[in-house]
């Protein structure tokens, strides 16, 4: 075997490896032999760390010294719904400072659910001469001052995407900090900014960047200025409008319509806050080329939605409010045969009664009419096992299925039975299902079906479901490819957790809140499994001041090679092997 290693010079292997992009494949390559491991690590250019606490920046840098692109994720997914208290963690600063000295040629940073400060942004802008891409998805902790530093110093910036981050708006003038000779912007997404940015700076920026393909504006950009921008960037492929409302004026309309017609490459539309329906026809000229349409902030009624959607025969992705109604989804099913992804959001999520005629029927229609449908997020108020079984049989190619029946514990509205068999049909028929979110009235049986059939499932979200530990046991013992499991308000306790402790090391993370896991079990888990961080999150105070049998509030367990973290706030405790490390 050592002789094999000498038959190819390193340069040749390196060249071959440069064609291998996927992390999985590169990980496999690095396990072949010592020399392949070494060659691979020097040639790896992209690193993705799905949980920033799973490994330390030092370890990453030590193994991969020549990285150009880093992607990190911080807080657990349920942080999106306010279940993770403020201050929990996800700080990117240690990563930025480590990389500032170790990776001078770093080009791309992509963060999701992390806390990043203006200081870090400034450090980025000054440390990486060839910095090209900054994507901050659902991040927080920074202000427009940090953005000003990026604008002023990153001469080679191509992409600035603020996602759905929370940005402290100190001044709209940060955009003016892009120098006059800066022309390299390709993708700019400022949709999340609450206040006005300097419009003239925006106009000039758009006008001088000939490669601009993506422009997502914020709500504060008025409609009557949109035509102007579009005329300066007719090469746009993706556009997010600002507020889509203005007094109905024929001149504004014809300018807008003309501008849209001039954008021959436009394939994706979003924005559409505060829509005045009279202006919708301005986009009709480009509808037939659209692949992606995000109307999830557009409070327009079904008839207008139908008129719009019926013209988008090439639509692959639609995000929309439930104003579309079952009738609109019927129209979608009839017109958009290439549809791959549908998300229907609730217009009145906290109302007690349904405010629109949107039921399970709409989803059934789309599942029947759209043969390529594989990704669904659907909020509704009623569901039946029969509908779920129909959807499952229609769409065995489904890969992501997230159903949210708004009222917890809602049974099949026709039979008043739990929805176990309906979801069972989904996992049985959709053999490539990778992501599933459950809702409605569910017993332990649904988990038995999931454990038995959902062999490719990677992420499962469970709320207000199940009857006993058996439910959790089915998931942990049956789902071979499970990476992320998040559970809230279910009667799952210690038994299943401890019996399946080893499984947790094969997963990225487990979240359990408002369940019945006791403090004692958490301690035991932490002691037995040194490869896991077992974090107890409890704002009531130190858990060891209560009896061990007392259930804890929130549990977050994740595998890690770098031990307990040191940036925990006062309401988080790590259950460690060494009791002395437990801070209380």
């Amino acid at each position, binding site marked *: 075997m050592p002789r094999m290693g000498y038959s190819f010079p390193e340069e040749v292997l390196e060249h071959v490896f440069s064609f291998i992009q996927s992390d999985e494949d590169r990980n496999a390559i690095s396990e072949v032999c010592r020399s392949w491991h070494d060659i691979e690590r020097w040639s790896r250019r992209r690193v993705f760390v799905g949980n920033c606490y799973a490994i330390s920046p030092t370890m990453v840098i030590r193994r991969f010294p020549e990285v150009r692109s880093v992607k990190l994720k911080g807080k657990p997914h349920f942080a999106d719904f306010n279940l993770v208290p403020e201050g929990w963690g996800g700080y990117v600063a240690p990563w930025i400072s480590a990389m500032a000295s170790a990776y001078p040629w770093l080009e791309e940073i992509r963060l999701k659910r992390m806390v990043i400060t203006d200081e870090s942004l400034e450090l980025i802008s000054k440390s990486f001469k060839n910095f090209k891409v900054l994507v901050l998805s659902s991040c927080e902790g920074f202000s427009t001052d940090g953005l000003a530093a990026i604008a002023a110093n990153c001469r080679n910036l191509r992409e600035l995407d603020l996602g759905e981050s929370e940005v402290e708006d100190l001044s709209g003038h940060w955009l003016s900090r892009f120098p006059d000779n800066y022309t390299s912007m390709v993708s700019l997404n400022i949709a999340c900014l609450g206040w006005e940015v300097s419009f003239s700076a925006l106009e000039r920026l758009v006008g001088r960047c000939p490669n601009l393909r993506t422009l997502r504006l914020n709500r504060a950009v008025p409609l009557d200025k949109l035509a102007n921008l579009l005329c300066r960037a007719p090469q746009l492929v993706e556009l997010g409008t600002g507020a889509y409302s203005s007094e109905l004026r024929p001149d504004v309309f014809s300018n807008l319509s003309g501008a849209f017609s001039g954008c021959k490459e436009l394939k994706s539309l979003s924005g559409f806050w505060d829509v005045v329906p009279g202006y919708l026809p301005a986009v009709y000229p480009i509808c037939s080329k659209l692949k992606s349409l995000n109307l999830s902030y557009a409070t327009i009624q079904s008839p207008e939605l139908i008129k719009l959607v019926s013209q988008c025969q090439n639509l692959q992705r639609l995000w929309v409010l439930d104003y579309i109604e079952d009738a609109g989804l019927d129209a979608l099913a009839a017109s958009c045969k290439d549809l791959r992804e549908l998300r229907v959001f609730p217009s009145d999520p906290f109302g007690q009664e349904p405010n629109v005629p949107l039921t399970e029927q709409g989803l059934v229609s789309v599942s029947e009419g759209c043969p390529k449908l594989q990704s669904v997020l659907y909020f509704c108020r009623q569901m039946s096992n029969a509908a779920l079984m129909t959807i499952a049989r229609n769409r065995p190619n489904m890969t992501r299925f997230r159903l949210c029946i708004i009222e917890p514990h809602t049974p099949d509205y026709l039979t008043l039975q739990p929805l176990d068999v309906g979801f069972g049909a989904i996992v049985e028929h959709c053999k490539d299902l990778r992501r599933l979110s459950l809702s409605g009235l569910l017993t332990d049986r649904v988990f038995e079906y999931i454990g038995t059939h959902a062999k490719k499932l990677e992420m499962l979200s469970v709320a207000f479901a199940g009857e006993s530990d058996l439910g959790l046991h089915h998931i942990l013992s049956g789902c071979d490819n499970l990476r992320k499991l998040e559970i809230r308000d279910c009667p799952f306790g210690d038994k299943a957790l401890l019996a399946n402790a080893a499984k947790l090391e094969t997963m990225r993370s487990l979240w359990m809140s408002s369940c019945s896991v006791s403090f004692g079990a958490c301690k035991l888990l932490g002691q037995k499994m040194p490869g896991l961080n077992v974090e107890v999150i409890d704002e009531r105070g130190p858990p060891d001041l209560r009896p061990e049998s007392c*259930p804890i509030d929130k549990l977050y367990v994740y595998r890690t090679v770098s031990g307990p973290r040191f940036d925990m706030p006062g309401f988080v405790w790590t259950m460690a092997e060494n009791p002395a490390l437990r801070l209380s």
Partner: protein
Amino acid sequence: MESKVAYENDLNLKATELRLGLPGTDYSEEQALFSARNNKRPLPDTNEKCGSKGCTDAPHAGNETAPSTKTQIVGWPPIRSYRKNNLQPKKTEPEAAGIYVKVSMDGAPYLRKIDLRIYKGYPELLQALENMFKFTIGEYSEREGYKGSEYVPTYEDKDGDWMLVGDVPWDMFMSSCKRLRIMKGSEARGLGCGI
């Protein structure tokens, strides 16, 4: 004569209420099925004893003050704050505007206008009408309307029909009432709950 209107605002709501629940389960039973933990944080009492009674956070702690399903649950439905915040239009809510309806009374020289929003229910409304027009309304009954009253309160609803005030739940009345007319009792015969 006392003009007591002897019924409640939400007339017979419970009887017609549609509930989603397993047959045979009671509303309160359903509460105990899911976590009795409400999302108000209990006071940080570090001497809290745990046990069958003390541990208020055990999900199966029987029928302890179970929260009503009507109170909002933290983080449910699962919608990002970003989306929740952005869904509301920046204009003020229409509810703030008030629901003004004209009130006419047979024989009165001119009409009045009232804001239905300021009344909590039928008793207050009728009291206000009596004060405004200086008359009295008799007792309401589902079967016989305002039998024996000199004047009878009626209203025109969204469909253009003239209805007896008091038949439908208050909220439904508020959203469907277009205007009020206080009819002479003799003319009002025929308007009753016989519909």
